[in-house]
């Protein structure tokens, strides 16, 4: 158990809000839950350009970018972030998406390159577990 926690401590996550929508309640709650779970969390604040999200992700050397999108523009925005990371030689950074995501769009987001999708109503434990699964190698802690 200690091993897993130590591994997670070093992991950095960027929580980002692309677009003009200013509703950041969910983004901040997730950011705090990840911090409480031992991740090092960077939050961009609201109204971020795609280029600056990509630049921050690379600069801060994060393992995961979590996009919070409530405006309905999740498909286009996610695709642009994934492409941006790829163009910056940072395709190893996983992109996950949270917010008001219709069930029908979940497979479309995966197709666009999202590693995980957490629609509104996902329990915080599940978000934390999902992010941890993406950032820890499959080494079970010794008992």
């Amino acid at each position, binding site marked *: 158990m200690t091993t897993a926690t130590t591994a997670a401590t070093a992991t950095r996550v960027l*929580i980002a809000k692309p*677009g*003009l*929508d*200013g*509703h*950041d*309640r969910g*983004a*901040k*709650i997730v*950011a*705090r*839950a990840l*911090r409480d779970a031992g991740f090092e*969390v960077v*939050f*961009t*604040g*609201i*109204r971020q*350009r795609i280029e600056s999200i990509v630049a921050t992700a690379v600069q801060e050397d994060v393992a995961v970018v979590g996009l919070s999108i409530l*405006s*309905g*523009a999740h498909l*286009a*925005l996610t695709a642009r972030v994934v492409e941006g990371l790829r163009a910056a030689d940072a395709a190893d950074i996983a992109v996950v998406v949270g917010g*008001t*995501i*219709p*069930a*029908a*769009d979940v497979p479309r987001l995966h197709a666009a390159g999202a590693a995980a999708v957490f629609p*509104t*109503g996902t*329990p*915080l434990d599940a978000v934390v577990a999902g992010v941890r699964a993406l950032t820890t190698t499959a080494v079970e802690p010794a008992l």
Partner: protein
Amino acid sequence: MNDSAQNSSATHTSSGIPLKSVYGPADLAGDPPDPGHFPFTRGNYPSGYRGRLWTFRQYSGFGTAEESNRRYRYLLEQGGTGLSVALDLPTQCGYDSDDPEVGEEVGRVGVAVDTLADAEVLFDGIPLDRISTSFTINGTAAILLAFYVAAAERRGIPRAKLTGTIQNDILKEYASRGTWIWPPDPSLRLIADTIEFCAAEVSSFNAISVAGAHFRDAGANAVQEMAFTLADGVTYCDTVLARGRMTIEQFAPQISFFFYTHGDFFEEIAKYRAGRRRWATIVRERYGATSDKASMFRFGCVAGGASLYAPQARNNTVRVAYEALASVLGGVQSMFTAAWDEPFALPSEESTTLALRTQQILAHETGVARVADPLGGSYFVESLTDATEARIVEIMADLERHGGMVRAIEDGYLQGLIADEAYRIHQEVESGTRPVVGVNRFTADEPAPELATYELDAEGLDRQLKRLADVKATRDAVTVRTALAELTRAAEGTDNLMPRLIDCANAYCTVGEMVAALKAVWGEFQQPVVF
């Protein structure tokens, strides 16, 4: 203030005020004066709702200027007397529709207004001298007001005949809603300019509606919502009075307030009673106002918002009904009741009608409007009103000690308080210590509600871009340059900016150009990142 963390929902209000199991005469601090008398704990009007019911105000807005104009005309034909204009996010944040950064968002949550040409289409054929128009606009409120005045004057309607409201409350944008542009100090100057301009030239137009609703939606509890909002109101009054051009009696009657009503029934009632008394007391004691008109706290509210949930969504109808009742018992002046499907869809016509019927049943069947402040004198309600007011005073004093609202926004202190509370509430709902039926109690296996997907209206966007391109091609470039240069120059001094903005509007400058002309002097707000 964080003592509420270990509270139980059975013994404390949702804001953490401890409750006894029974209240009696010993809990009364004294009899509050009758309704209609200072400090208005029991309401603004001696006969409550007998003279006039609260206003049923249902909010909607969509599409392009043409579509919205058709919708407005229809509403007016149906006997409506007021318009409510929702603007898209680029307009609210100061971007033009042809800005490559915002293509995804043009026309999405409201109408796109780039130049006076859009405003002319939007209000075409609408008798602006007889219809009141309310604009949900903040960062660019002064610019939209300039468009409205210019559009009316081009049709021969004098500005003195215009009625309506702009929200124009920038402080809560920094801490919760997010449509800020410039830093707080110049933004406050611009708001003071609009307040003075309206008082002098558009005297039937309300220049500001101070909104706590967005603090609430971002996570603040009921007591914080009221305290933060009153603190914003104080900041606006301080700003206007410091300029020495107006008295409190002149502009305080123009100020109104706006909140969310959530589900903790008596707490919401006490919140409104306490807020009314506190504002009246502040206006009288801090600013020396003597008239009732200046000290009255007039407010609108939304029943719904973050108190509604997607699982078992039809339960929301019941929540909204209780919240609407609490609002009326708290003395609301105008109310919007949310539709039950709001957490996951653009409300349907059916759900919107049901929401309106909820208010109508309350007003016309239940009899709650017959007697002014029916809960006045209740041992419990009066005592909870006192306890709520005491906490409001405490929170406002804490903000003052911190250096005031602007300071608390700039260093993220206010945002931190809201984020703390949002996290606490979220954890209480997830752990079940805050009971929510259908979410953490009495849950049922049911398919997740089908979320609505927004489709971008490509045709509407094309039409908008074409109109903007036409305006830019046909306007007089010299007039545009001169008007923008004059705006920048005026921003460097202290003259009222409204006449310059109206000149810019008449020259067909765009929202983005006017914003840039002011940014050149004022810069941009740097958001503190707090979570």
